[in-house]
């Protein structure tokens, strides 16, 4: 396969698999900052393989395999990190009590378009928050599917979304009040 053919195969595969690879990396890395680097490393390894004319039976599985290895390489532990509970058991119980029954998450409106602020905020939180937000808003996963994917309960996922959005809304309002004064 010459360089042009390799690049063409590479581009086609990249377009087709990008979303799944980013999702995998976000759900398995420890830091939102690392996602871009790890994704690049995955596809560079893939390019190296096709450029060396080595056959690949199942491209999607192969890419996920590389992604798994690259994530491990970054953090270098053999077994999956324990997904730490975001809140203590006491907090979890209190949150379930406090959320009003009629709260609908999409109705918490954020008026400001502050992507930089949102990204910095997400990076400052535990990686589980970024995972939940990515799966909920970017991948349109329902709460149950997110809970299964991240080995959490559905109520935990909803708690994280609700609590984080509330805090983000408060911070954005605080910042815009600060800008106005």
């Amino acid at each position, binding site marked *: 396969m010459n*360089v042009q053919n390799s*690049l063409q195969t*590479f*581009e086609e595969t*990249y377009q087709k698999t*990008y979303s799944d690879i*980013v999702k995998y990396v976000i759900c398995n890395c420890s830091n939102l900052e690392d*996602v*871009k680097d790890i*994704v*690049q490393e995955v*596809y*560079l*390894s*893939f*390019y*190296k*393989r096709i450029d060396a004319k080595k056959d690949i039976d199942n491209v999607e599985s192969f890419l996920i*395999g*590389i992604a*798994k*290895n690259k994530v*491990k*390489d970054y*953090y*270098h*532990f*053999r*077994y999956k990190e324990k997904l730490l509970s975001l809140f203590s058991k006491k907090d979890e119980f209190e949150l379930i009590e406090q959320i009003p029954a009629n709260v609908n*998450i*999409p109705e*918490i*409106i*954020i*008026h*400001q*378009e502050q*992507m930089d602020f*949102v*990204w910095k905020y*997400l990076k400052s939180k535990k990686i589980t928050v970024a995972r939940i*937000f*990515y799966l909920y*808003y*970017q991948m349109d996963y329902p709460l149950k599917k997110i809970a299964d994917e991240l080995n959490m309960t559905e109520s935990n996922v909803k708690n994280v979304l609700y609590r984080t*959005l509330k805090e983000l809304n408060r911070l954005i309002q605080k910042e815009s009040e600060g800008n106005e004064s």
Partner: protein
Amino acid sequence: MNPKELFQKTFDKYLNKEEIYQEIQKKIEKKEKRKGKLIYLIPATCVILLTIGLFISAKPLHGSFLFEENQQEDSIIINSLDQSMISLRDYDIKCVEITDESHEQLKQKYSFLSRLAIPSGISLTPHPSENRGCAVYTKEPGTNDYSKLYQYEYYYKNADYSKSIVLAFSKLGKPFRDYYFMEDATQLSTINGNSVLLYGSDSFYIAQFTYQGTFFDIDAKGINEQEFLKLIDSILQ
């Protein structure tokens, strides 16, 4: 703007598909240019290396390849490791953290734990309450109890996790690894009279060997070859 639009725009901006693709393409182009230059450099380099090799081979080498004080002849061959040829495995295991108490007991039982040549800056617990390692249990056949102790693993790392060593050992058999690499041909090294299988690429090294009835599997990231070999040597005393 509702949250969905805001977060979608944020993720699209900071994990931009096209931007990442452009970055990858730049790296591929750089690699292709370097490949072109190598085609001219390799023959010249080969001639130089051949000349040096002929000169050195005229004088017999004595003593260890690694350390002057070691009287045995060591022979080091680091098999290359193509990290893209990885096969993944999932084992049904349970990990139980090694506590302070169990760590002290293990040091009594496995004397090498007290003499390991760990590179400076790396330790078992660079941060308070860090997990130093775990005892790995498998199920007893025919049961659902993870009661069969199979291996121990120790995790050494530096403060920012850029360097790490995983030391796995077992009396029962080769330690589990959750990824395996396929290589066409491998050659054994000899360190202090012991056969050791060594792999390495890009500051990532793996060693597998048996010593005094214990099976070892060690992998290290971010340390250099000399540091890695010194670590292996410290076990094989």
